């Protein structure tokens, strides 16, 4: 019936499941300063990470420390692909650095290798609600034309590093 190469899989976003918000050299992202809400209470955006607030994205579901077990379960379901994002602030913690954070790059190497071990193709979103908070705070986010260059630098680092592991 349909193409044998059809990409059945599942999706997540780094900021909603990775946790480890300040581990491995990661910088604060825009969702790391959003407090917990519920049906009746909207989330708040705070000026930086404040001591007495609860930030659910900081822990996510702690995939950062459990990715092997979870990818094994995806493999058991037969996933052909796994759509996820790279947390920009893991690669460039502030966003305007010249050099990327090697520990962040190595983490995604491990995740992609683990997927490929089971024949699962990683499908990547470069920016999924997790730009570095520093860029929002110091440059006004995408109001500033210079952010184009910062994004391009980040994208280029990802393409060079992962192009043999990621096609989409």
């Amino acid at each position, binding site marked *: *019936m*349909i193409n044998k190469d*059809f*990409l*059945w*899989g*599942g*999706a*997540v*976003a780094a900021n*909603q*499941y990775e946790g480890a918000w300040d581990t491995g050299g990661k910088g604060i992202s*825009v*969702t790391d300063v959003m*407090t917990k*809400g*519920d*049906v009746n209470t909207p*989330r708040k*955006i705070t000026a930086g990470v404040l001591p007495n607030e609860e*930030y*659910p994205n900081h*822990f996510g*579901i*702690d995939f950062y420390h*459990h990715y092997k*077990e*979870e990818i094994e*379960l*995806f493999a*058991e*379901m*037969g*996933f*052909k*692909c*796994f759509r996820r994002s790279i947390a920009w602030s893991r690669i460039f913690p502030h966003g305007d650095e010249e050099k990327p954070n090697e520990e962040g790059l190595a983490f995604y190497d491990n995740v992609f290798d683990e997927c490929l071990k089971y024949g699962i193709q990683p499908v990547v*979103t*470069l*920016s*999924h*609600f997790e*730009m570095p908070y520093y*860029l929002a705070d110091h*440059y*006004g*986010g*995408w*109001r500033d*034309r210079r*952010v*184009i260059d910062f*994004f*391009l630098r980040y*994208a*280029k680092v990802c*393409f*060079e590093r992962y*192009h043999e592991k990621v096609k*989409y």
Partner: protein
Amino acid sequence: MTFNEINNLIDTDNPFNAWTGAGVLYKEDENPEQTMYQISHYQFVASSLAVQEAKKIDSKLQIGCMLHLGPLYPASCKPLDQIASLKAMDRRFFFSDVQIRGTYPSYTKKLWERKNVKLDITQEDLANLKKGTVDFLGFSYYKSTIAEYNAQADFLEKPNPYVSKSDWGWAIDPVGLRYILNVAYERYQKPLFIVENGFGAYDKLENGSVNDDYRINYLQSHVVQMLKAIELDGVDVIGYTPWAAIDIISASTGEIEKRYGFIYVNLDEVKQGTAGVYRKQSFEWYKNIIKTNGECLKDQVRVEK
């Protein structure tokens, strides 16, 4: 894909869209629409430069744009409701029109003229938009709504009275997925990738599993409509990745209680250091769909309905 649900930016009434999508908080003394078009422009340029860079590094890389997509059907067969629906869909497709066609649509240029929107757009930017068009369209699909003509606004968006609702008040419109696949494919003739589709619910963990037949029903009816689009209509669909692979915290509230995954996550157990993950019934259902490459649904696909 470059920017997730980039077209969420169009809705400037919800401050979270500009924050999560662009790190921007609108100021009280500014025209948010003008700012929205400016930040969108910078993202379009960034996306087009990234595409060009990707092709230089590896010509096999496939880069897509990503939209939040669902139909806004005409509220009735009144001619003005057709125009309302058309305008509503243009607002949704504006972003992919730029990222896929590499040029600003004429309806947008006219809107900028009419509303006196002035932007920082250089000739070099416009040349880059043309050079860095994306290879495919990824999108999330959750539901449909309707567009009704309104003299003040271009249209009013309302719930669709003809589709069923979940116990949690969500409109469920699987046929809308087949419809939007056709509309998007006719508009662009580019491969489409359904990168989100799913059902949020308060799951109950019993005996180490969750009987989530509501999720299975939702996903199965959508998969059937996707297969119809492929098999009967000839739409080029690359893949299907439901939201979410596993329970995660929600983007709108940060809670985990509204669950989407095939795998149940007990956050308390995870925090105590044990695995805390359980296969739901939908886990087994999806395993079978993938194993048979959708063949197990073929009787439902061949029926014209």
